[in-house]
């Protein structure tokens, strides 16, 4: 639970010290007033960078040299202060957990235990495969020890191998990277597959519930191996399969000057499986290409709900839900069903934003309402029992 947030120099937000109620808050404000910036500041403490991909130097408020975010967390008797700051002059970034700098940023990520829902999430479903891999990579990095390290090393080895291929280096100098690539790639694919398999049936049920009875499935399609090892196989079997494929594609990789197989070519697929629509056939249809806007949004939301459940199980406590204008694009029926789902998924703290008070569908009766205007948070009265 986030009990206090301290901000300075962060985007348009006024320097502030905000005490957050255990239940959470509803943040109401028109566009460009700073709602999303506040969620960005909180999530910065989870991943130590902007979830929007903004460079640190550009987060600093105009005319300032430093931004700083500090979060006070409380989990039962456990208290922790996580802080992050960036200074433009000298390009200095400093992260501390309980006042101590972690050995690597990777060692400190995931400390808040937050899950962020934004309207941009629909891109996980509608954009190219790299968006879905990014979703898996961030989620698994935050929840599985060692995943981030394997991923970083894999990328490093991959760009080194591609550099030899580009320069037309000797075969042995290319092969030098293969063992590492296969071992690390095997670990990554294996962990992604495991997650998708473990959550597959939940994906069905959550999607069905949120959409009001529509059917969809999720599956992992490894481009890294020709024949996926059996379900119970460990990362070593995946590594062996990947080594085989690297070996088989060796000459082709050399001709094309790039590594053509590996987890960087894997794909997370989602399919509509119901016989819905006028088409009587029940052939699975790729959600990315054949889903309606509503269905894609529901699928993205479903992935986030599964992420929230993963966080809850991994950390043994409900995640902090950050819901950015969640209901903007959902029709009333979908919104109602999503609210029910979220309520069951997370009994924890919620910080949600909405442009208007009437858009507050979730816990509207229970959440303290804050208004935000021109970066200034105005802490309103406690929840009003008369509000519908």
């Amino acid at each position, binding site marked *: 639970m986030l009990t206090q947030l301290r901000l300075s120099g962060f985007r348009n937000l006024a320097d502030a010290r905000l005490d957050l109620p255990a239940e959470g808050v509803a943040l109401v404000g028109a566009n460009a007033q700073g709602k999303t910036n506040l969620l960005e500041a909180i999530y910065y403490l989870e991943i130590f960078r902007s979830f929007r991909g903004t460079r640190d130097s550009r987060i600093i408020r105009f005319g300032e040299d430093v931004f700083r975010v500090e979060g006070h967390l409380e989990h039962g008797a456990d208290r922790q202060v996580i802080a992050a700051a960036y200074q433009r002059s000298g390009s200095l970034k400093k992260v501390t957990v309980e006042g101590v700098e972690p050995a690597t940023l990777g060692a400190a990520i995931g400390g808040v235990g937050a899950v962020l829902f934004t309207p941009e999430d629909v891109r996980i479903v509608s954009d190219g495969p790299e968006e879905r891999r990014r979703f898996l990579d961030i989620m698994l990095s935050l929840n599985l020890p060692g995943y981030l*390290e394997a991923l970083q090393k894999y990328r490093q*080895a991959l760009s*080194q191998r591609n550099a*030899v291929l580009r320069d037309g280096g000797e075969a*042995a100098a290319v*092969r*030098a990277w*293969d*063992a590492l690539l296969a071992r690390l790639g095997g670990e990554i694919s294996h962990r992604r597959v495991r997650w998708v398999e473990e959550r597959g049936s939940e994906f069905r049920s959550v999607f069905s519930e949120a959409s009001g009875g529509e059917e969809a499935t999720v599956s992992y399609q490894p481009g890294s191996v020709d024949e996926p090892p059996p379900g119970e196989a460990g990362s070593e079997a995946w590594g062996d399969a990947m080594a085989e494929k690297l070996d088989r594609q060796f000459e082709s990789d050399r001709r094309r000057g790039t590594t053509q197989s590996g987890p960087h070519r894997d794909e997370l697929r989602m399919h509509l499986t119901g016989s819905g629509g006028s088409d009587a056939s029940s052939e699975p249809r790729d959600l990315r290409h054949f889903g309606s806007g509503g269905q894609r949004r529901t699928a993205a939301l479903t992935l986030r709900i599964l992420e929230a459940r993963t966080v809850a199980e991994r950390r043994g406590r409900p995640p902090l839900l950050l819901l950015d204008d969640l209901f903007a694009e959902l029709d009333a029926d979908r919104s109602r069903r999503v609210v029910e789902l979220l309520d069951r998924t997370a009994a924890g703290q919620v910080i949600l934003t909405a442009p208007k008070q009437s858009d507050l569908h979730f816990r509207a009766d229970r959440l303290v309402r804050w208004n935000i205007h021109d970066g200034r948070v105005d802490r309103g009265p406690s929840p009003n029992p008369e509000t519908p």
Partner: protein
Amino acid sequence: MSVIDEVTRELSRLPGIGPRTATRLVYHLMREPGERSRRLSAAIRELADRIHPCPRCGTYTELELCRICADRARDRTTLCVVESAFEVHSIEKTGEFRGLFHVLGGRLSPLDGIGPDELNVASLLERIGEPDAEIAEIILATNPSVEGEATAVYLEGVLRPLGVRVTRLARGLPMGSDLEYVDGSTLAEALSGRREM
């Protein structure tokens, strides 16, 4: 450019020394009696004039052949391959290794334009192929980083056909750590528990 600026610039090129530290060092030197700065500069000059890589192993020496290569009491059947001369120093400090060394002068990093030809690989093969060579085991002690691992895999590939035993430092070392930063006892342990490649 003033002398102060010039010395500051030269110092800030050293690893681990930023412009701020360099400036502090320069002001420290100026406060000290001039004799100390003269001694320091003379010593650094000697380093540049008298030190050269050993023609056999590549470690630094002021002798014709380095102290280790020249020592007839060293075990000539084991050869430890390291990335840089600094690691020779680290391993020597443990006192656990009695064989000879070979310094690669870096590690494979195609992104930085460093391939096998940029490393002292040819001289390593020559050493093994010499008629009076007694080398029976080669220990690959490159760093456990991504590049160090790939370098070891590469070397294993070229050494294996020569019929020598090739081993790798055991993984008591924390992943990704440079030998440079590993303490002596961890290194000694790694040396004794090396594994077959």
